[in-house]
């Protein structure tokens, strides 16, 4: 693979996707310290919100230690060169949250929908584009449908005003060939001015490989997270990815030693559990289940005595999508009843 001279914008997820792994309990100081470390290392874009995006604070997804507003107010003014992005899932957050993020200096908004439901994003993408924000359409669980469907949905988001489209492997299910097929089709069929991005999870151990083939197929934005801090087995670990890209001669603009230090000195020490491909995280990838279900399934296991792996496989069989965290306790209760445990 030749990525020599290839330019890529890396986008750190540790303070958003990483919120899942921290049960949304990252402190303001931790957020600020990590963001400043990343800023100094040259990270161009850093995402900051509740794990489920703006307005995600809820019983269903977890109440965060601080509001989105408090996190953004702590991070945005502290940045020297990095821009801050925010995630928004229509159905959870609203245009009111979007306006709030814009007013606080968020420059990139990523409007996320399930990969077949792009048409719920029209008002949010439309407003963000109108306000002049860098506007991203983020198609989640992209492994669930063929490439042509992803393209069809991407075109809707472009019509609404998105200037970048993400193929998002929320379940960490994809193998490299699938990434190549999907990204190539998007690159070939969308206008040249529209950037293509890839967001991976490491549940099948494929995050680095998938991110590389995504770049080879034309993606110019790659999500990852320092020390991999993210849902499931985490996101593409950025310090590792930077080292790989440096060896390959691609240009990230990031200081490798500095990002290694942020990973080792700031992020790893605050992890509540090791972020690795353990049995349950592997099941997420294997069964094609939304990565943030991991800790919920483990809590249901502890409470109802049903193995997290069995719950996750059943959630995959039922074709659950992102946001259906409420199904986990519901299903565990039903499975416990069937087993005569309740």
């Amino acid at each position, binding site marked *: 693979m030749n990525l020599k001279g290839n330019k890529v914008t890396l986008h750190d997820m540790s303070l958003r996707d990483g919120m899942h792994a921290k049960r949304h309990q990252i402190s303001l100081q931790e957020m600020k310290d990590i963001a400043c470390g990343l800023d100094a290392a040259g990270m161009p874009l850093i995402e900051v919100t509740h794990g489920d995006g703006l307005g995600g604070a809820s019983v269903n997804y977890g109440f965060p230690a601080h509001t989105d507003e408090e996190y953004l107010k702590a991070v945005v003014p502290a940045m020297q060169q990095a821009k801050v992005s925010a995630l928004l899932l229509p159905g959870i957050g*609203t245009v009111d949250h979007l306006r709030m993020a814009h007013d606080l200096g968020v420059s990139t908004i990523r409007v996320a929908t399930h990969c077949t439901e792009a048409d719920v994003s029209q008002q949010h993408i439309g407003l963000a584009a109108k306000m002049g924000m860098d506007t991203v359409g983020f198609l989640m669980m992209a492994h669930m449908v063929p490439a042509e469907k992803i393209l069809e949905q991407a075109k809707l988001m472009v019509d609404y005003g998105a200037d970048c489209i993400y193929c998002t492997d929320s379940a960490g299910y994809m193998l490299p060939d699938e990434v190549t097929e999907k990204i190539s089709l998007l690159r070939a069929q969308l206008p040249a001015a529209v950037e293509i991005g890839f967001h991976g999870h490491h549940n099948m151990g494929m995050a680095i490989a998938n991110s590389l083939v995504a770049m080879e197929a034309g993606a110019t934005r790659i999500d990852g997270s320092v020390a991999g801090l993210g849902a499931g087995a985490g996101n593409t670990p950025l310090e590792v990815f930077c080292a790989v890209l440096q060896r390959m001669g691609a240009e990230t603009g990031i200081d490798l030693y500095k990002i290694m230090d942020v990973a080792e000195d700031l992020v790893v020490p605050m992890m509540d559990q090791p972020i690795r491909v353990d049995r349950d995280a592997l099941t997420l990838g294997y069964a094609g289940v939304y990565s943030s279900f991991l800790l919920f399934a483990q809590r249901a296991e502890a409470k109802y005595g049903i193995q997290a792996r069995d719950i996750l496989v059943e959630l995959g069989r039922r074709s659950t999508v992102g946001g259906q965290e409420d199904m986990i306790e519901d299903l565990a209760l039903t499975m416990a009843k069937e087993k005569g445990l309740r």
Partner: protein
Amino acid sequence: MAKKLRAIIIGPGNIGTDLLIKMQRSNWLEPVWMVGIDPDSDGLKRAQTMGIKTTSEGVDGVLAHIVADDIGIAFDATSAYIHGENSRKLNELGVLMVDLTPAAIGPYCIPPVNLADHARNLEMNVNMVTCGGQATIPMVHAVSRVQAVDYGEIIATVSSKSIGPGTRMNIDEFTRTTAGGVEKVGGAKQGKAIIVVNPAEPPLLMRDTVHCLTEQQPDEQAITSSVHKMITEVQKYVTGYRLVNGPVFDGNRVTMFLEVEGLGDYLPKYAGNLDIMTAAALRTGEMFAEEISKGAITLPSRNEGRIEGDEK
């Protein structure tokens, strides 16, 4: 049998057609007109074959017939955008308005919680909130009538095929209106609503989860009993409304997991979210009809003189 209250339905789409089928079985309401805007629409043709008068000129096309056809109630299944005008024109003619759009000019109506009050007060415009609201607000109320609820949160998961372009284009309206209903009618101090759209095939039944955070330690026995009573109340008009799991108690959290299967009249059974709207709207119309029939309330007299002056 008492005289039925004569009705018009505005909007011959999925909701309007399903409502028409249900209304043809009603002992209290008689559908007379279906109002549309496109003479070639399938919905108006369907209504004609079902023996209903139709107009393709919108509400203006039916105003001249209101008195002659003795219309007492209207159901608006169009959009928030035009509901205001529809309601004004029909209210002026003494016609009650049941609003199935998100316009919410009138008070929210969740039948087992506050319909009786609305009927007694002769509210001339009542709003049916949202499908998610109809499915979940009774549960929030079932908890809040036992003890104070600081926070109520609902998650509605609906099949992709069951939500139309109107809802999709303005999904924020769903979350805002439903959260408002959780507070105003459900009785939670703070409300939150989430909607998830799932494209699985075959389509999934509507699923709803209701979380309440009670101010004090929840009284498990009283809440469980209240929840079961409320399920029975809703089942009177939505037979496929089921408590799948719960109430679950975890500290101050009380959670109910629900499933809503439709009757499959015009809309498929999985579209319980649409069925619960039409069923609740029908129940609302019937309650007003019953009260009118009993003489407990009287519709305002028709004021024909004012229409002409108002029209231009």
